[in-house]
């Protein structure tokens, strides 16, 4: 495959300062294959990552990126193929082996212990002496040097759990550097970050790169690839389909390579018929066990035929809001109106009642809430409606009907494979999400609560899901959408509410919003800015 690169005529120009043509390969993978049972997660993958470059690996969910990196980091062993690090063939059978050849990894989900200090977390597993104290001091000196060298500022003495997500990620990076990693792999590092934090991260990565650290960035976000990488490899269905020099490609080309066909990114968003307020919330307050307000005096409304998007950094009360509105979580004070009727009493923590009010809910986390992964698809397709008369005959579940209905949903929403008997866990993320969406939309809801509609969903399915939401809006359903994907929020929403610290701190019309503005609002910095401006 390295040959492809040259055949493509995308050889580095001599003038490229970041990645001189002569730069040796840091990692070279030859013919890597890995199967799980009959599934080929990686199929004869060839790839070369040059030392001192930032290399992006892009692909849809399930394309095999994570498997490939897990092989490189010693979590899995490849069935076939060789790994060369710095020109030497190595066998990586454990994460220790990976570390010893200089590979460090920053996982998508941080591997940190919240109740340890930053320093303790960093040396965890790399303690240098039997007595902790001496080792800690030794580590502190080394880390200070690292922080200075790369401009990675993290207070070593605070509890890790108290740090914001962006800084926790820096702890992970420090952890890798502390173990002398010269090749740093980051798996979807920006999924949990605000645009500002992302910019910060990229600055750090650039600095590390200048100091000679090779960086491998795994992502499904094209924009990131275009912003920061020198080279990019595209995976699709377990295979490496293309290698490109970032300067010589475009987001459109990469998207096409990822999906294997042309993508229509613009959706036709007819102006909806905005009707009466369908869902109205007044003074909603939810407190945690420790009486900290998770949702603080929230008021807003969603009209029929309108999509309201809620933007915000994860953990600012959006999840709680969805849980309250869907009846999963009780609230302390406030009122909820449906079509002008006060439904607050019924709403007190009974998802079944809420469903009866024609409020459907596509939860944020489909594995945790939306489906039972051990159930068959048809069993998952009645989750929440298992008591409905149509699915029962006498004391028994009416399996033929459930099967037929599930097949109908699958056909309507293009869920593949069309097998009601398949285990839910064995469907891809996109198909799982489509099935859940089908289940909820099929009941003809007046209000649809939807969280992270396209998280972990491949591009093809994103298109489809967005289309369905728009269609629903056209039919006069009120849609309340929570998403961390700003692109999605801006694309679909008629109005955008920005949540920060349990409150709505800003509202903008969907067509007036831009990423920078939303980013500032999400960090609740815009009001301070505005204030500063008025003061000035």
């Amino acid at each position, binding site marked *: 495959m390295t040959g492809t690169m040259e055949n493509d005529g995308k050889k580095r120009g001599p003038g490229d300062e970041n990645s001189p043509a002569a730069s040796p390969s840091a990692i070279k993978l030859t013919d890597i294959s890995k199967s799980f049972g*009959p599934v080929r997660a990686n199929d004869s993958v060839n790839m070369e990552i040059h030392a001192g470059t930032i290399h992006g690996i892009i692909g849809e969910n399930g394309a095999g990126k994570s498997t490939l990196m897990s092989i490189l980091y010693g979590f899995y062993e490849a069935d076939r193929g060789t790994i060369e690090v710095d020109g030497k063939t190595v066998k990586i059978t454990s994460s220790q082996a990976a570390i010893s050849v200089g590979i460090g990894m920053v996982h998508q989900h941080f591997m940190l212990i919240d109740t340890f200090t930053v320093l303790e977390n960093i040396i965890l597993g790399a303690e240098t002496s039997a007595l902790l104290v001496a080792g800690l001091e030794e580590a502190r000196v080394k880390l200070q040097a690292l922080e200075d060298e790369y401009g990675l500022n993290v207070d070593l003495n605070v509890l890790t759990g108290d740090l914001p997500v962006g800084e926790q990620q820096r702890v992970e990076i420090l952890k890798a550097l502390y173990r002398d990693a010269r090749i740093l792999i980051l798996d979807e590092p920006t999924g949990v970050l605000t645009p500002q934090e992302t910019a910060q991260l990229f600055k750090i990565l650039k600095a590390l790169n200048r100091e000679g650290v090779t960086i491998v960035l795994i992502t499904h976000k094209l924009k990131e690839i275009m912003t920061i990488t020198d080279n990019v490899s595209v995976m699709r269905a377990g295979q490496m389909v293309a290698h490109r020099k970032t300067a010589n490609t475009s987001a459109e080309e990469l998207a096409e390579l990822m999906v294997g066909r042309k993508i229509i990114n613009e959706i036709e968003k007819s102006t909806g018929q905005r009707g009466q307020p369908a869902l109205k919330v007044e003074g909603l307050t939810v407190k945690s066990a420790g009486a900290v307000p998770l949702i603080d005096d929230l008021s807003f409304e969603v009209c029929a035929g309108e999509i309201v998007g809620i933007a915000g950094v994860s953990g600012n009360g959006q999840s709680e809001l969805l849980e309250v509105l869907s009846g999963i979580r009780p609230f302390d004070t406030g009122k909820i109106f449906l079509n002008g009727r006060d439904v607050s009493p019924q709403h007190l923590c009974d998802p079944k009642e809420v469903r009866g009010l024609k409020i459907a809910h596509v939860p944020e986390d489909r594995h945790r809430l939306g489906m039972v992964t051990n159930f068959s698809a048809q069993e998952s397709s009645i989750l929440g409606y298992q008591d409905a008369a149509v699915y029962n005959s006498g004391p028994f579940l009416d*399996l033929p009907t459930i099967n037929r209905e599930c097949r109908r949903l699958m056909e309507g929403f293009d869920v593949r494979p069309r097998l009601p008997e398949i285990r839910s866990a*064995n469907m891809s993320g996109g198909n799982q999400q489509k099935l859940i969406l089908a289940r909820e939309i099929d009941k003809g809801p007046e209000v649809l609560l939807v969280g992270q509609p396209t998280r972990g969903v491949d591009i093809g399915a994103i298109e489809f899901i967005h289309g369905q939401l728009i269609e629903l809006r056209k039919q006069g359903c009120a849609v309340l959408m929570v998403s961390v994907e700003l692109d999605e929020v801006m694309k679909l929403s008629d109005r955008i509410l920005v949540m920060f610290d349990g409150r709505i701190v800003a509202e903008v019309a969907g067509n007036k919003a831009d990423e920078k503005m939303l980013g500032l609002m999400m960090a609740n910095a815009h009001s301070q800015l505005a204030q500063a401006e008025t003061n000035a």
Partner: protein
Amino acid sequence: MSQNSSTLPRWIDIGLIPILNVAMALLVSGLIILLIGESPLEAVQIMIQGALGYDEGIGYTLYYTTNFVFTGLAVAVAFHAGLFNIGGEGQAYIGGLGVGLFLLLADDSLSPILLLPVGIIAAGLFGAAWAAIPAYLQAYRGSHIVITTIMFNFIASALMVYLMVNVLIKPGQMSPESRVFLDTAHLPFAHEIFAWMGIKIARSPLNISIIWAAICCIGLWLFVWRTRWGYAIRSVGFNEKAAVYAGITPAKTIMLAMFISGALAGFVGVNEIMGVHHKLLLNYTAGYGFTGIAVSLMGRNHPFGIILASLLFGVLYQGGAELAFEVPTITRELVVVIQGLVILFSGALAYMSTPWIEWAYGALSRRQSSAGQGEG
């Protein structure tokens, strides 16, 4: 992708792996028997002959099987709700108390036709009530059910000793046993039924409870996989958060599952008290409740698997007793070792061989698919 056991087809998971586990247990047992200087093959032969070779042996084997089916199903239904009910022993004990008390009170006043159904209900209700207390503590107070059910075994045991020694003992005798129920309150033995039909078979404790055990298997299968309540139980067991999302109340579901679990365990009392002993006494549960855990694990919490596993343990119990009797050097304790090994390999180490089998299966299916591609 990384989830285990999902990559294997069902027949391997519920067929091949349990058989392999038992084979490994028997292999180790064989080594031990070799070590003490006896022939393993001969031992196996005696065991199988003793358990299945003649009508009395078969009767005993099926009698043990009946108990294991009840306790195995009890563990399984709780397991589907994500609960580990270790209290089958105590629930069986109290279930026996239920049917015993009922018969002591009513064996002369109630029509004999009603004695069996009401006796079953009494055993079930008492067992269920005994399970309901730990269930309540788990569902509404968060006390871990493993701990509480273990403790309730001890409480059940102490309670029974107290009742038998101080309250229910038949006056004028030393042994802590109640009076014998009237003949009309005895469940018919298998040999009695066969005698009515003109077939003579040897006496054994096997009685018509086994039919009730079979009905329970079918009933539980229907309940767990074919009703919305079973759906709720499995939802809570697999993913409690998703169950809440679906409007299912986990606390109520836990109560329901444990109630059924306790009732099933309590039915051991029907077999033992109403079917075999015909009086209340001590220690008639003899570890059936604990063995039920292994039975359920081995049967993959499925009624059909539980029937097979119960048969196996029935054979082990009966054949083991025979073995200890026939071969003096293989003592009663060594038989317990063999039983223990089967429980160990099919229970605690049930998934030990899974990675190897997954690997082998993966290699095989790869070879097949690449061969297929070669042709195409």
